[in-house]
């Protein structure tokens, strides 16, 4: 469970990224966070991974106040949160197997179990035959699937994705979203920051819209611009 309690974030430059944001995400939910560039949606992801700390307010993940978490505990938190980025962030000097296995190695997973786990996640993302390839030999969609596989290795309860389809064509984006939806169906909470209106509209999941650092909409089974079944006047108001 994720909980934001009246969170404010002002960067050192003086930019107010978040202004009193409060929301709750239950276990197993699939949530889109949408908004214009600079609206504050990436800051929400950064606060959940302790990359940034709130100026005011609290962020909780599974009842742990991650906003006040001690520095040495941050790696422990990140091992339980799978992260997916727009630019994939794969290590180019390691092959696909090593890139995925690396997430297990840092937690000291036994070699035999690690090999089995990597094999399973590679099968899930459909890249079992690419285990020995290097990231630069793969397409953008394949690289993002590798990133998803890496995020799954430690069996996280939460996956955070920051613009996961930002560098992908529409067809590949659909495949990536389908994969994330499949992971969500197995009980993993998925939170995605995105600009991709088509995907948001098509998937009809919970949508939290951020504008100028504040939540302006939080709808279940909604679309990019407005809840599918919301009254016309409410949509116009937004």
């Amino acid at each position, binding site marked *: 469970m994720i909980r934001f309690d009246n969170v404010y974030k002002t960067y050192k430059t003086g930019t107010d990224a978040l202004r009193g944001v409060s929301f709750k995400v239950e276990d197993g939910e699939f949530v889109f966070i949408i908004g214009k560039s600079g609206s504050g949606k990436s800051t929400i992801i950064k606060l959940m991974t302790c*990359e940034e700390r709130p100026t005011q307010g609290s962020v909780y993940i599974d009842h742990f106040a991650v906003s006040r978490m001690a520095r040495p505990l941050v*790696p422990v938190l990140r091992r339980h949160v799978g*992260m997916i980025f727009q630019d994939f*962030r794969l*290590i180019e000097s390691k092959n696909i197997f090593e890139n995925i296995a*690396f*997430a297990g190695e840092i937690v*000291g997973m036994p070699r035999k179990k690690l090999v089995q786990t990597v094999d399973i996640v590679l099968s899930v993302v459909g890249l079992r035959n690419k285990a020995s390839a290097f990231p630069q030999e793969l397409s953008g969609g394949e690289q993002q699937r590798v990133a998803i596989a890496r995020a799954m290795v430690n069996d996280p309860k939460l996956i955070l994705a920051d613009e996961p389809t930002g560098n992908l064509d529409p067809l590949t984006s659909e495949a990536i979203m389908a994969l994330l939806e499949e992971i969500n169906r197995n009980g993993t909470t998925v939170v995605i920051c995105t600009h991709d209106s088509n995907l948001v509209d098509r998937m009809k999941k919970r949508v939290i819209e951020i504008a100028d650092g504040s939540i302006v909409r939080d709808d279940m089974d909604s679309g990019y611009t407005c809840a599918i079944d919301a009254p016309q006047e409410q949509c116009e108001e937004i």
Partner: protein
Amino acid sequence: MSIRAFTNSIREGFQGILRHPLVTIASITTILLMLLLMSVFVIFSADARYIMKNVGQQPPIELYMKLDGTEAERTAVSNYLAGDTQQVLYFKLASPEENYNEFKTNLGDSSSILDNFDYNQYLPYTFHIQLVNPAYADEVVMHLEAFPGVNKVMQERQVMVFLTQATQWVNVGTAVAFCVLFMISLFIISNMVRISVYSRATEITIMKYIGATNAYIRLPYIIEGAIVGLVSAVCAWGITYIAYSRIFKILMAKIDPGSFYALLPMSSLSNGILLVCAFCGILIGAFGSGVSVRKYIQV
């Protein structure tokens, strides 16, 4: 950190050396040059101290008994010198006859002029004294002058003062040079490794995002730095060994190894140089690398 994670870090450290061979070679060369300079200072300092010690132990103190001094008075001085092992390294009582023979020997071909010299009437008993440290001279002289039967105690005061000061200068100079060289090499190697770390900055950031601890990220770089430092140390030691052995052979070709200005042989210095090089090399390499990573792990 688990054992498996630790062994992974060590493996990564070894792989890192081969991953950027040019940076590795540049790092080894930098540390090697610094260690060579350090070795030269260590050898210079060791030789200087050795020579000072030898010079300081030559008999700069000469004690002359009165011509009418008694056996008991000489025994009292002898007993004092024999009992003061903290300050007195060695002493020798010379009889008038022995002093006479030494004069004759020093005169060489002209020694016949002393043939009819009545040494018992003009030459006293003397003590040749070597001290553990030239700095003790004033205290020892003061004690000796107080004994009955002692005519005068002569010391090469200026030489003693110079020796004391020179020993201090050499020690301070070596310590300062050592610290300065250490800091310079640490700075250079830290910047050198930064190039390697910069090329892996993305990798480090990714590692942080997927939950690697700072120690896990740092350890391979520290091990890599330590290995580079150790290799540099062994090379520096080898070069120093060969170079100094040759210099020693040339310089000592016509010098008696027992003379006070003889140099220390490499066999006496070898282990010390290896230890200093290994310690400094590993410390510089490991610390320099660890510091370089710092900037990139604050994610």
